[in-house]
């Protein structure tokens, strides 16, 4: 394939405004264009409805009395606000939320800080085997978690941390491959002169990291934090392994909802009170939606960066 490209070395820094020659309209006719645009817009709206439908359905199901949950009407015949009060009597939802918020906050803070430190080590300093070691960092992303799952369990068990929060954020103290990669990319973008100048002014290596690099790296720090918060919020398998032996109050959100799904399943002697599952599912979604509302551009930027690591 021919190389169409200019010498621009990085994908990220390509200027958005590649110079456009004046548009010569040999293409589709005006009518064709308007038609094309309308079809595009209709498709976009159609898919938006498709993606939104389950949410609307969820909100309405959460407001219905038990007998109407399955009628699939988007506007409930009977609106039963009391579901939102009763769910807290039925399930220790506040405990789950508190546990998950705490764990997710610790997990995200730890991994964001430790990954930044490691990333700065790889980005700024020159030392033997640096590139080899960084290659290993990238290589560990390939490893399925199940390979290390059992030994990790045994480590935490022998340290006496079963049925505590520690296994759910403990390994985050040591950085995480993708986040190290992401932070390093950011640090590499900082001009080296900045650090050389600080050196001359007598800054320590730690000072360079903490006072110069970190404040500048806030965007990628936030990306890492948000990503890990979401991952911890969703960590079902970890909760199953480390918290399942405890009481229901000690559950996290994913473990709790899973428990609720079973509790109300009719096949299991439950009463089929799915409206409570729906309320709970909706409530545990809200924190992530708020996070997304606050940091949408960081999420999008973070995901887009994943594609560039290849």
């Amino acid at each position, binding site marked *: 394939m021919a190389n169409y490209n200019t010498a621009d070395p990085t994908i990220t820094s390509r200027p958005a405004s590649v110079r456009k020659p004046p548009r010569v309209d040999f293409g589709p006719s005006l009518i064709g264009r308007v038609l094309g645009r309308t079809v595009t817009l209709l498709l976009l709206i159609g898919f938006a409805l498709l993606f939104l439908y389950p949410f609307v359905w969820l909100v309405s199901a959460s407001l219905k009395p038990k007998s109407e949950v399955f009628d699939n009407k988007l506007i409930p015949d009977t609106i039963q606000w009391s579901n939102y009060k009763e769910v807290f009597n039925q399930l220790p939802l506040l405990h789950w939320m508190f546990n998950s918020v705490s764990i997710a906050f610790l997990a995200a803070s730890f991994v964001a800080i430790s990954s930044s430190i490691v990333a700065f080590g790889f980005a700024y300093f020159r030392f033997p085997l640096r590139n080899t070691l960084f290659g290993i960092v990238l290589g560990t992303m390939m490893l*399925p978690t199940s390979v290390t799952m059992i030994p990790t369990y045994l480590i935490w068990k022998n340290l006496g941390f079963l049925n505590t929060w520690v296994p759910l954020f403990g390994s985050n103290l040591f950085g995480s491959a993708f986040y190290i990669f992401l932070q390093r990319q950011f640090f590499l973008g900082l001009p080296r002169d900045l650090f050389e100048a600080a050196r001359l002014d007598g800054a320590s290596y730690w000072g360079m990291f903490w006072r110069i690099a970190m404040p500048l790296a806030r965007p990628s720090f936030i990306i890492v934090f948000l990503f890990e918060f979401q991952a911890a919020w969703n960590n079902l398998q970890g909760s199953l392994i480390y918290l399942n032996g405890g009481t229901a109050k000690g559950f996290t959100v994913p473990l709790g909802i899973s428990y609720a799904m079973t509790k109300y399943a009719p096949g299991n002697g439950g009463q089929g009170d799915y409206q409570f599952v729906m309320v709970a599912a909706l409530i545990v979604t809200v924190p992530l939606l708020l996070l997304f509302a606050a940091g949408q551009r960081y999420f999008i930027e973070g995901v887009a960066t994943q594609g560039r690591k*290849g």
Partner: protein
Amino acid sequence: MTRTAVEPSVAAQPAPSKLPKQRKFNRSEALAGYAFIAPWVIGFLVFTLGAMIYSLIISFTHYNLATGTAPPAGIDNYKELWNDPQIRKSLSNTLFYAVLAVPLEIIFALFLASLLNRVKRGAGIFRTVYYLPKMTPMVAVASMFLLLLNGNTGAINQGLRKLGINGPQWLVDPNWVKPSIVLMTLWGVSGTMVIFLAALKNVPRDLYEVAELDGAGPVRKFFSITVPQISGAIFFNTIVLTIAAFQVFDQVFLLFWRDQNNPSSDDSLFYAVYLFQQAFRQFNFGFAAAMAWLLFVILLLLTLIQVKIGNRFVYYEGER
């Protein structure tokens, strides 16, 4: 990626001695570098390398959690992998799912990204809406789809009935269990879509304009310009999605296997779920460790094959 720019100050160092290797690194700087990466090194030695070795050892034992003993088992666990019919069943289920899910995800995500890339005003709103499923916790998604996919009362079959189609028993019919999971996966395809969208934004516009002058239609433009230009992203997404497909756990566990007293049929047994059950419900650590290594080898081979094929088709930017 590992290749960083040649450090200019190295070259500028005075007095090129006969032993350049020793002069190449500034001692205090190198030590500081090691100090900075020390957290990762420790974590790697314990939670990755150490754990891998430990896991490999366990896979050759009948590890007993209750007594903490590990009687040697030779290759028993690996033989059992071959003999256990549920291994074959769960592997074929997972493979079936992956073969169905990955191409559909790629096509759907690329289609959505192309749509988004065509509009200027309002694209942000659509992108936000499309991304919402990705922000929904998997437990919430599973709770919703448990009811939406219900064969008799679910909204999906109700909708199909209006179109005159008699929908299947999604979560019960052995043939429809895996497509159900695919459907849930596709609903959350927006992560892949965002990666494609970023790639599409990087395709130089003048290429399309030149093609238009040459009279290329939209289909031709898509296959002759867009696809080659974003082949890197297609390649990356395919690898990542394949690896993810082989490790699918949450959805399957929540829909079919969360209730220990009420086991599902083997038609919904995915590899990661079976592995989890062997490890943390039966506590067959030796066998589960062997399963994990089998998965690792499969994924490694698949990725190598994909890289091999990919290298033939993927068009890289000038930097490569």
